[in-house]
């Protein structure tokens, strides 16, 4: 993979200390049921890291006293947790019922065609990940697309190329600002 665009790397000693603090807090909430801290902790890692890296999974397993395979088993069960890194921008096309009825499949297909990836994949340059979402709760604005935290409402297939172009430009601007 020729990744040109990368997210910030958070893998520092302070990061691990914060994680440990969070794990202790969660464990304290239900003493006697330490394992129940697992999903909140996975959320914590996913939120800050963008995915669940192996190192973190091992560490969490040790802290909670469960086997690593158990952590993987749980993490892989839930579609919210990603076991591989994601692109700088995650494009989530809603294919919930309301959006589907309003034509979101054509929007998804168009993103896939433009980016030359299938839903669930990332572009080679590490810029975009394409995902399907099952209802983002904004059904009144269907079809809805979310790019990272930003909403795009009532999206039509012909708007897709502009959306992709805008974020590509934004990423290039950030990149040249850094260089």
């Amino acid at each position, binding site marked *: 993979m020729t990744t040109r665009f990368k997210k910030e790397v958070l893998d520092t000693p302070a990061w691990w200390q914060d994680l440990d603090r969070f794990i202790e807090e969660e464990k304290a909430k239900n003493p006697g049921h330490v394992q129940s801290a697992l999903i909140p902790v996975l959320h914590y890692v996913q939120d800050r890291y963008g995915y669940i890296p192996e190192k973190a999974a091992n560490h969490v397993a040790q802290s909670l006293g469960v086997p690593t395979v158990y952590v993987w*088993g749980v993490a892989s069960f839930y*579609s919210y947790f990603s076991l591989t890194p994601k692109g700088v921008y995650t494009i989530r096309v809603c294919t919930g*019922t309301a959006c589907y009825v309003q034509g979101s499949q054509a929007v998804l297909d168009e993103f896939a065609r433009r980016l030359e990836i299938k839903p669930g994949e990332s572009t080679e340059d590490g810029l975009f990940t394409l995902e399907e979402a099952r209802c983002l709760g*904004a059904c009144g604005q269907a079809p809805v697309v979310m790019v990272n935290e930003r909403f795009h409402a009532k999206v*039509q297939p012909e708007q897709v190329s502009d959306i992709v172009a805008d974020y590509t430009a934004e990423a290039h601007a950030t990149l040249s600002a850094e260089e």
Partner: protein
Amino acid sequence: MSSAVEVLEKIKRDASPIIAGEVKEPQVLVGIATCALAGGAQDTLDAVESAMDGNGSAGLGKVGCVGCCNLEPLMEVRKPGEPTRMYVNVDPERAAEIVRRDVMGNSPIEDWQMEAVEGIGALAPEGAPAPGEDHDIVDRFTRDWRRLDFFRRQTRICLRNVGRIDPESIDDYLAVGGYSALAKCLSELSRQEVIDIVKESGLRGRGGAGFPTGLKWQFTHDAPGDPKFVVCNADEGDPGAFMDRSTLEGDPHSVVEALAICAYAVGAKRGFIYVRAEYPLAVERLRIAIEQATERGILGDDVLGTGHEFRLEIRLGAGAFVCGEETALLASIEGKRGMPRPRPPFPAASGLWGQPTNINNVETLANVPAIILLGAEWYSSIGTEKSKGTKVFALAGNVVNTGLIEVPMGVTLREVVYDIGGGIPGGKEFKAAQTGGPSGGCLPTKYLDTPIDYESLKAAGAIMGSGGLIVMDDHTCMVDIAKFFLTFTQDESCGKCTPCREGTKRMLEVLERITEGKGEALDLERLKRLGAAAQRASLCGLGQSAPNPVLSTMDQFPEEYEAHIHDDRCPTGVCSALVSYVIVEETCIGCGLCKRVCPVHCIAGEARQPHEIDDAICVRCGACYEKCPVDAIAIK
């Protein structure tokens, strides 16, 4: 020692509500909810803020969604002694203009107000009584823009405060009677009396199954074991439904209060709210609500000075539909894979960590404080004989007013789709309404006058479900919709039991074949057999109900299945393997709209000359078909 009611009175004396209560100075309220944010409400809020900056004493507040999601961003202007005005589609430019002309000046802009929107209905005369409305606790529809048909035909009990108070202010909630029901329970009612009121009200679970709520509370109350737990199910898995999200975003305290009441009634000291991770704003507002209630001594180890202990914890889901099923949800809280287990034992007897656990849906709970305050008799006077109270529906799909509504049980589908929903947009026809999402069924035209209640919907082959109501117009292919839902359930099947795991997979294969024009005569029989097996033999509700959308559409629209199978034809032109688009030369006016919307540039033609589609390049997205102003594009 003072009673809980007295303690609450003292808390209320020190409260300073932001927007609830009398209007003493000009106020601007901007709706901030997920639907609003999707519509760009954050920019609107920023624009209002900068327009009002340093401009006198006008207040600015945030509210939940009043229900007109398609008109977001919404902005309400209130001035002392004047009717309030609701502005729609308020982009930043409009916002600045409204502040200048209406808030600061004295000339409201009529064209941008809700009354001017087509399809939202007529305005009833000032003061005309609204159905079911008889108390301040419940939203009133007799004044201002609330007299519009869209609102006046509703009865808002669950949504009583949504859009009326600042959801991030406990003082606002207190000002509209918040936590009075909890105080009343703690100081005046025994645990059994609370349960009896809920029983007599006739309230049934709004999460889908419709189980009597009071009875469930009784089971948990009677079950031996300590500690006990209460859990709120806010996983809202039905894709295309957002009742619980709206309630939590617009009035989180009502759910917190209801859980505290439930905990008192069943004898629990701890509670959990399990929320979908896709709802960050709901989570944030719940977090604030719990923090505020704890600060004021309404939650914690001395609830309203009574010595009762109650603590609440928020848990996030992680994108598994099956976790909405109660036993799977509890497994998820325990830190396991969210897989259901056979019942009995029911959670009331053996739930979280094997202890008695009462689990209720958000909407079910949000009704409880109103029932405690206004009484079982009041609540049971609303609705039908067996389905009491109201139901919240998320109205979406091909309908003019998409949004959130709450109607008394027993209204007809026609009232919902036409009188409140404003009918079908784009001059198209109503084809069917889908209720119950992936577990539900379709209601075609002949059921438009069927009353909406648990029994009638079931008899019609659909279910009440959790409240998703998707309206479909005559451009919707029912085989495709069945395939859509089955793709969903097949993907979300947890894999634990074979009838669900394999049954949904095999059924989906058959449906895929049919939509690709490779169906055989025997396929319909196969679907029925596989469906019946999954319904009977699956472990949990997911598999038991997964065949419903397929069987219901086969039942209601047999001719569509037959056209796909026998004629290799998709009558609505949705199944792309079975269609190609052509432009009818005689009808085409050469306006070029189709050329512009085509994402793959496969349409050619000179201006004002008939255009042509290159079928080899066409990706069959249907964009041109939808866009053509003169219906010159035909499906072959």
